């Protein structure tokens, strides 16, 4: 760092100097202007004024960094984009969750404190949807872990056409959700669908998988597991190929059983990656939306309506904007807690090992 200090003994402290590179002052000024604008001006004008103030602060920071912090400047555009597209809406919606507001009404937001959160946490519908989500997440992640793990064991061996089969197995993961939804919708369809045609060869009756709660759940879990098992496989496979060969050779000399070899040699190498796969897939499964929406719309009735679909209905269909942001924050909080729990467990295991 080569910071240049030109401040003389008599000049005021740096933060009070009206200079373009005085970024802390610019930031404070921007915050004050924004707060005043939001409080005093109509929404549209306040938006533009706040934006201009933010731009000024950003310009000041860039001017200050120019020629001095090259690395920082290089990542600045990415951070700016992240701020505009992600962090700002996130903070905005967090604020909105303490207000009563519907996007399709003319009424301005009214502050109601924690009412939205109280309403949601005491709403049996939300708990029901969370339960559905939990059941679905547990089932689909369990299936993915088992199938992905077995596939990885299979593909860690050398056999003819392995490379081509591997590409085939990885394909579902690369398809879009819409394609998968449309595909499985037809696959399960009782009149034209392959599944029904196949079952009918034995029973003579068309098979209507999505008519029952259990069937619909099974259909969704299968489709989601079909799509994401390869992801688990990929991670586990990476662990499996990293196990040094000599350990197995040593184990063979010691006449260790296959089970002991797996438990004492293979498993420690893939445990971290398995944890990672579990973490990723659980977070994703918790947000499960696309496949459910395309396959069942949450039906029959609301029996497969996950919390993500519930939020979508509240936010986009019913325009309960602030209620749905509150649910989203509860969800975000849940996912963060889950993640930390996993990381904690994973770290503890690693330390024990």
């Amino acid at each position, binding site marked *: 760092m080569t910071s240049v200090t030109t401040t003389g003994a008599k000049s005021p402290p740096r933060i009070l100097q009206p200079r373009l590179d005085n970024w802390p002052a610019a930031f404070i000024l921007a915050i004050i202007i924004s707060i005043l604008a939001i409080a005093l001006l109509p929404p549209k004008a306040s938006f533009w004024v706040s934006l201009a103030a933010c731009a000024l602060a950003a310009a000041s920071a860039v001017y200050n960094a*120019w*020629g001095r912090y090259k690395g920082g400047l290089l990542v600045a555009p990415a951070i700016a984009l992240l701020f505009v597209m992600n962090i700002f809406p996130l903070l905005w919606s967090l604020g909105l969750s303490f207000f009563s507001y519907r*996007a*399709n*009404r*003319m009424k301005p937001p009214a502050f109601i404190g924690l009412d939205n959160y109280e309403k949601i946490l005491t709403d049996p519908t939300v708990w029901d949807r969370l339960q559905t989500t939990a059941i679905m997440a547990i089932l689909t992640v369990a299936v993915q872990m088992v199938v992905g793990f077995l596939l990885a064991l299979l593909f860690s061996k050398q056999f003819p056409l392995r490379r081509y089969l591997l590409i085939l197995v990885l394909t579902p993961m690369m398809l879009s959700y819409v394609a998968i939804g449309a595909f499985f*919708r037809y696959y*399960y*369809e*009782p*009149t*034209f669908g392959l599944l*029904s045609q196949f079952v009918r060869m034995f029973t*003579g009756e*068309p098979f*209507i*998988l*999505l*008519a*029952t*709660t259990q069937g*619909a759940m099974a259909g969704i879990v299968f489709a989601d597991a079909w799509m994401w098992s390869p992801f688990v496989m990929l991670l586990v496979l990476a662990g499996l190929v990293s196990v040094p060969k000599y350990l197995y050779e040593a184990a063979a000399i010691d006449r260790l059983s296959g089970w002991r070899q797996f438990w004492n040699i293979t498993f420690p190498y893939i445990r971290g990656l398995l944890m990672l796969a579990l973490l990723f897939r659980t977070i994703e499964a918790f947000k499960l939306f696309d496949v459910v929406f395309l396959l*069942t*719309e*949450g*039906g*029959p*009735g*609301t*029996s497969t309506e996950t919390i993500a679909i519930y939020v979508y*209905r509240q936010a*986009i*269909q*019913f*325009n309960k904007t602030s209620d749905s942001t509150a649910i989203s924050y509860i969800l975000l909080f849940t996912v963060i807690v889950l993640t930390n729990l996993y990381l904690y467990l994973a770290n503890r295991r690693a330390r024990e090992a």
Partner: protein
Amino acid sequence: MTVKTMLKGLATASAMAAVMTVAGASLAPANAEEVVLRMAVPDWPPTRIMKDMFDKNYKAPSGKDVKLEIDFIPWPDYYTRLNASLTSGEQKYNMAVSDSQWLGAFIEGGYYRKVNDLIDADPDLKATLADMHPAPLQAYATYPYKSENYYGFPQMPDIYINYYRTDIFCNEEEQANFQAKYNQKLPCTPEEMDNVDWDMYEKFGEFFMRKKGEKLAGQVLDDDFYGIAYQAGKAYDFSTMQINAFIWQYGGNIWDETQAPKGHAEGVVNSPEAVKALDHYLRLTKYMPPVVKTGSMDIFKTDELFREGKVASHIEWIGFAESTINPQTSKVSDKVAFALPPGLRGEDGQIIRWANIGGQPFVIMTWSTDEQIKEITDFVKWWLSPEVQHQYAAQGGQSAIKSVYNDPKYVTYRPWNRTWAPGLDWQKDTWHIPEFFELLVQGQEQYDLAITGKQDAKTTLDNIAAFQEKLLKEAGHIQD
């Protein structure tokens, strides 16, 4: 490069950008005669035909170069997408082809512009609207429903009708077997089919449900075959539209917004008549293709099943008829006929045919400029002019204007047009209040539970009534 030269470069670049922007703006007046109207529409034949007719024939009376930029949005997502666009404030569209139920939600939100001033200022437009059948005009244009406040102009009026296979219904062997089994004649001509009530329709269901390998109209079936189908899907309004018809035919009612704030949901929505009606609706589903048990038998699925030759008859919006008679999209294009939808036979022997109106109005957004509004008005006048309405009907559209559809030529355009005038008299509409979508979604969920066999009609309607009573009270539509 020093900081100074870099800053200089930056300044030069931004100056150039500014110059280019100004130049772009000053270039615009060269095409000043061009007016762009952006419109959101559902993606289906009635709007595709409109776009085609506009591109080929439309000359703006003002002499300006009017461009229609249309976003075709699939039906199941249309409400959600338009809702997102309007509430986000992006002000992307100047007009939309809006489903009639949305009026309340989007008028209260400040998006749809009231058009009474445009109608009053234009005697021609006023005369055209006066010549319109009241059912579609009230459903598509008025808010509150049946008031004098107008917010739209009919684009495509629509009703549902009975699509059936002549090769099956008119087959002599089937005719003889039906006569032997039920001691009744199996209808064949559209006139005979007009006289079909729900009891007869149920018999079609029972009679034509055949297994793979059995014979149908002299042919051995290579797949299961079904007699009847109507909408029973979970998404959007894909069961409500048909269930409402049953409820009205039985003398029941949905929550009636014209009775607000006195009219209740409890006791009306779950009246004994309504329960009987829903039971009847559910009873017929057992003769329908098995997909009905999954909650995905929407209007697109019954249409697909019919065009693929898997059902003998289905009840469907007229908007789908064009693709049914097109050999490129339909396996039954040359053996389909159209009749009035079945109804409930009253004590006097007449069929009660109340049905839920379909179809959509044009609406204008509040942020459209005066110039755009002028062009939109001219466009709407062009669309509602008798010649264009006749042209539209000749290509498979429909007209709500009496002088157009009462013209003897009208019924000759398409085989289903004969059902149009008599069908229109039996139309009612669902709610237009801003909360309609919550009512609709909750109703659809409850109906889905009934259709998939999870709960009976009484419980379903009790749940719906309780939900509506609570919601409507909170919203101030029901006051004690």
